[in-house]
């Protein structure tokens, strides 16, 4: 499977070079994002490849060039290559980090290309024509609202947070603001670094420390897997206990479709946002309506009713 994918990626690269030599009226769109090193990014890579195949089949004159880079410096070089070698008409970029990539993206803009920024904003406003992103505060709010539908005043929850970053803070602060005044007690919150092993160990310690926990906000599907293993080990997975994760991992969605009571819902932070960005960017050349602007995707609550439309069994995430 991996070999097939490598060959496919190689072919796509070769085709992209071949495309560079053909007719001038091809619309060339560069798509630049970090090399996938974790499951969410691997899902994003998969969705980008799917969108490329779909859009190129739909519009023969559109050529999408996908490049992933292992670090910010490599991404800056990749952006230069997209301009000098491919002469792109538009750029879809998910910046590795905001600061070091602001200038390189600005240079691409100066070449006359349309700029679409995905997920992470640049450190200077007004560079991008189109902005597509998930909604971190909304993820916290939606999770809190679901908790409040299931819990009563005086119930206890614990929170497992991600890696200490602005993303984690936005989610956590919005969650705390939403449950304020509901009477739900947050016993404690610890960082589990969006990681299964850390989720397992932190949850084990919460279980030893607090005899009465009614629900867990794990914020992320990987952490939730560790939490579930710890709950089962301690025989505390029953009695109406539930865990709310986030992101939209396919195994989690599958469980929701099958009616898993321990993880009954998920809150979407979709890796497929790159596909949305590619669609909107192509629409900027093809649509008769205006396209430029900011697209903030909803942090949809995934339940058994709507889970099927978020289930991609072939994606690695």
């Amino acid at each position, binding site marked *: 499977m991996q070999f097939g994918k490598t060959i496919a990626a190689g072919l796509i690269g070769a085709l992209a070079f071949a495309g560079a030599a053909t007719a001038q009226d091809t619309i060339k769109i560069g798509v630049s994002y970090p090399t996938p090193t*974790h499951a969410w990014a691997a899902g994003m*890579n998969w969705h980008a490849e799917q969108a490329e195949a779909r859009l190129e089949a739909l519009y023969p004159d559109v050529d999408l060039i996908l490049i992933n880079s292992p670090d910010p410096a490599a991404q800056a070089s990749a952006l230069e290559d997209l301009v000098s070698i491919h002469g792109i008409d538009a750029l879809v970029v998910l910046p590795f980090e905001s600061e070091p990539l602001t200038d390189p993206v600005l240079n691409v803009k100066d070449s006359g290309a349309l700029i679409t920024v995905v997920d992470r904003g640049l450190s200077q406003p007004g560079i991008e024509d189109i902005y597509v992103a998930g909604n971190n505060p909304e993820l916290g709010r939606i999770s809190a609202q679901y908790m409040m539908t299931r819990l009563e005043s005086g119930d206890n929850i614990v929170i497992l947070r991600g890696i*200490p970053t602005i993303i984690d803070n936005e989610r956590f602060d919005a969650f705390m603001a939403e449950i304020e005044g509901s009477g739900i007690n947050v016993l404690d919150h610890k*960082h589990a670094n969006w990681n299964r092993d850390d989720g*397992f160990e932190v949850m084990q*310690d919460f279980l*030893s420390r607090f005899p009465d926990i009614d629900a867990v906000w794990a914020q992320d599907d990987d952490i939730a897997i560790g939490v579930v293993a710890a709950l089962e080990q*301690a025989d505390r997975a029953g009695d109406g206990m539930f865990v709310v994760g986030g992101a939209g991992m396919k195994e989690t969605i599958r469980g929701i479709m099958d009616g898993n009571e321990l993880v009954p819902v998920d809150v979407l932070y979709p890796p497929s946002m790159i596909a949305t960005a590619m669609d909107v960017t192509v629409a900027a050349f093809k649509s008769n309506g205006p396209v430029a602007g900011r697209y903030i995707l909803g942090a949809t609550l995934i339940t058994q009713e709507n889970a099927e439309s978020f289930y991609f069994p072939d994606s*690695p995430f």
Partner: protein
Amino acid sequence: MPDMAQTETVARKPKLDLKMYGPAIALVLLCIIGFSLNTAFLSEGNITNLLTRSAFIGIIAVGATFVITAGGIDLSVGSMAAAIAGIMIILMNALVDILGTGVLTVVVGAGCAVLLGALAGLANGLLTTKGKIEAFIVTLGTMGIFRSLVTYFADGGTLSLNFDIRGTYRPVYYDSLIGVPIPVWVFIIVAISGWFLMNRTTFGRYCTAIGSNEHVAQYSAINVNKIKTWTYVIQGLCVALATVIYVPRLGSASSSTGVLWELEAIAAVIIGGTVLKGGYGRIGGTILGALILTTIGNILNFTDLISNYLNGTMQGLIIIIAVWLQRADWGKSKD
């Protein structure tokens, strides 16, 4: 031969010094702090969790004690664990069609893991000795190779063990024998074997001799390359054993598996009193070092007195203090 062994042992010091008991004192102090923060710290459940959790780093650190004592270093262990876990999962999933979901599949998977560990260790060892490349560089290289292999096998995502085998394999992590979890039994057996190998065999003494002075060891007719290569093979075997008990915990491996385990293992070894530049190794200390590291993390989860953002600071401070307790010239007259 036994006579020679006698002459090589270090003369016993007349009084108890912190060098011997520093790690044990540090662990007892940590336990008292943990208990005073929350009495649940010493509950049976938490002690069991602590010991089981220490098993991974502890087993790897026993192997690292040999490598470090013989003057080497292995930075690749965390990545190696991730790669072995990944290959083991792929193999067992593939074997379901042939061997079914029974014990046999698990045994073949575990056997393969041990073989892979030995081979990976052999590669590190031969590149260091025959290839004459510094161990730091060799294992820095293999660290990157193993890490990217697991990312590649997992297609950037997560490899998950077939659900039916998970049922068969799960007891290896979660079940107990005479009230002691199986990973802890493995840890105990590895620790005793390691102690015996280090303190009661010529191999252990050769490791110490090579670590103290490689040239002198060479002139003393010790096959330095062979002994050093073996230390890396032992390290590989320890990593494989740790992986065999790690995989049934969550049944998955990804590029984030085993990140920074190498530094934790090295820290456990040094906290335990082994000298980083080689020549002196203590298996017992390593075990305590691994327990201390796990206990720090456990205690930090038991309290909200300290900001989450300062966890790394607390860990760093305790590691430095634990080593300082042993190294500083406590009450010794200046030579």
